[in-house]
């Protein structure tokens, strides 16, 4: 048991979950057809704000992480006002630029300790281990207190991830989700249909930033140490790869992508120097074979069918309208008689 639960494996699982959350934050803005590369920027805002609040203001960790997410969302509102009006690659580069500007600011500020970064950030696992001692769970099920702390952290992270995924799944068929899909398919047509394109794009941008901020806060309180280089261009690319690799049209794609891409470097560790070469080649091959990522909507439908999950029957709008019209006619007729 203790062999499977060694800290190294548990750490990888934690990183996988955080990566999945970050991947979903990109997926969320992608679902309106906006390619933003600002996730690392928002992540760093969340991470720094959260870490500073726990370090300097000594707030409890959950509150600090939540405030970090809120601040990231607020920054997104400010940044989003001009940038969500941009299209395609202009948006991508502008948000990339935002991330770079944020990084340089953190690099030069006094309070963020510049290039040295913040260290000694209280760890979630450590806090939980203290609780384990308090409730006398040390040695329970032959698992020592430290491992319990790590396990509980993973459970909390999983709950957060599950909430985020649930949120994405539930929003998919709502009014907002439909608007997102319409904008992704064609934003001019969506505008003609009476959808407020700028509002919905902004909404997706801000929610994506909030998720990224939360992810950043969690990251800071798991690694205990952050510095501006953690959120550089490489991080942006890494985060972007999760949804694109796994499948950028379904939320499970981000989860699968982050799972594979977090695990792969660890599995390939024995290849040492050749690891990144294989990683790069793999990306090229995957894009040639499955340009939409591993999981696509068709594949998900097949999987759902195999699993026996019934998809909700889709009733076309026209049918609904005809039914309503018939009912109205019948009603007005009976009124006349």
């Amino acid at each position, binding site marked *: 048991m203790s062999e499977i639960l060694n800290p190294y494996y548990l750490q990888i699982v934690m990183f996988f979950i955080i990566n999945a959350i970050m991947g979903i934050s990109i997926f969320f803005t992608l679902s309106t057809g906006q*390619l933003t590369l600002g996730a690392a920027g928002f992540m760093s805002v969340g991470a720094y704000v959260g870490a500073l609040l726990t370090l300097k203001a000594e707030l409890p960790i959950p509150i600090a992480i939540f405030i970090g997410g809120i601040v990231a969302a607020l920054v997104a509102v400010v940044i989003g006002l001009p940038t969500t009006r941009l299209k395609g690659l202009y948006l991508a580069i502008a948000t990339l630029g935002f991330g770079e500007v944020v990084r340089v600011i953190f690099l030069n500020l006094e309070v963020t300790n510049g290039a040295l970064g913040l260290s000694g950030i209280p760890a979630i696992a450590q806090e939980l281990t203290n609780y384990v001692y308090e409730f006398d769970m040390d040695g329970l099920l032959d698992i020592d207190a430290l491992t319990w702390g790590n396990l509980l952290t993973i459970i909390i992270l999983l709950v957060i991830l599950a909430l985020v995924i649930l949120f994405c799944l539930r929003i998919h068929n709502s009014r907002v989700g439909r608007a997102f899909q319409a904008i992704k398919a064609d934003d001019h047509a969506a505008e003609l249909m009476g959808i407020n394109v700028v509002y919905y794009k902004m909404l997706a941008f801000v929610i994506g930033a909030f998720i990224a901020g939360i992810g950043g806060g969690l990251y800071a309180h798991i690694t205990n140490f952050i510095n501006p280089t953690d959120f550089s261009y490489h991080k942006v690319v890494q985060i972007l790869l999760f949804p694109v690799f796994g499948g950028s049209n379904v939320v499970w794609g981000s989860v699968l992508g982050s799972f594979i891409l977090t695990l792969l470097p660890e599995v390939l560790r024995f290849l040492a120097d050749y690891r990144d070469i294989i990683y790069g080649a793999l*990306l090229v091959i995957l894009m040639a074979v499955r340009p939409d990522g591993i999981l696509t909507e068709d594949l998900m439908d097949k999987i759902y069918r195999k699993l026996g999950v019934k998809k909700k029957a889709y009733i076309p709008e026209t049918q609904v309208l005809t039914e309503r019209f018939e009912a109205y006619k019948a009603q007005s007729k009976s009124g006349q008689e």
Partner: protein
Amino acid sequence: MFLQQLVNGLTLGSLYAVLAIGLTLVFGVLNIINMAHGGIFMIGAFVGLFMVTVFEVNIFVAILVAMVVGAILGYLLEFVALRPLRKKNVSHLAPLISTIGVSIFIESVALLVWGPQTRSFPPDFIGGLIDFGMFKISMVQIIGLGVSIVLMLILNVLIKKTKIGKAIRAVSLSTETASLLGINPTLVISVTVMLASALGSAAGVLVGLSFDAVEPMMGVVIGFKGLAVLILGGLGNITGAMVGGFILGVSEVFSVAYGASSYRDAVAFGLIILLLFWRPQGLFGSKDKGGRP
């Protein structure tokens, strides 16, 4: 002081311009951002360095060889990472990721072969300073500025006057119409990517020479600046890339000279965020084509 900084800015800007022209050429024809450009740029720098140190050739020959190697790499890039994607109807994300894959590949190979250390050109190569009274200019700067301007002029003639140049412009306007008119788009796209990579490679040698530093990760930072210039000038616009390169170079040098030196790397992106408020399609971008993914 002012004039000196202006000269420094213009030389730096000319390098950015050559780099960004490569990006903008590929964008114009293929509507994608070539993230592997930085990788080819870095390889170019290494080839130039080895030509100078190992084979002891003239710097101009070294640049030429680097350009040829760059063109070959460009062809491989197109063949391996872009051509398979063109056959299918894919989202604009796929080529982006594919070229990111190539850049990771190139960088890690370079890291493996040449190691992470920074190499420099032989000292006698740097040459002396020429004093014009008002400002000083080094041999390296003259070479950088001169070669970039010559390359830009050649490219201008190539694009505007020759048959292949016309074909490139036709394909960048509309691939379908161009192929209906008897232009072979595959050939034109290959040539464009090769041309762009050759320019990127030349920029690599020049940047390596002027910063006197060649290392495997140099493509990432500079590649970033190239992207900034690309947006600044307007996607797919060659004049825009030239002017944008000079603007970025000058504003970077001035920001270092008059204060905010530690914010140097943020200048490029701060500049484009400000610019996009005013002109969402870049300085020279046209409104109808601009920004379409």
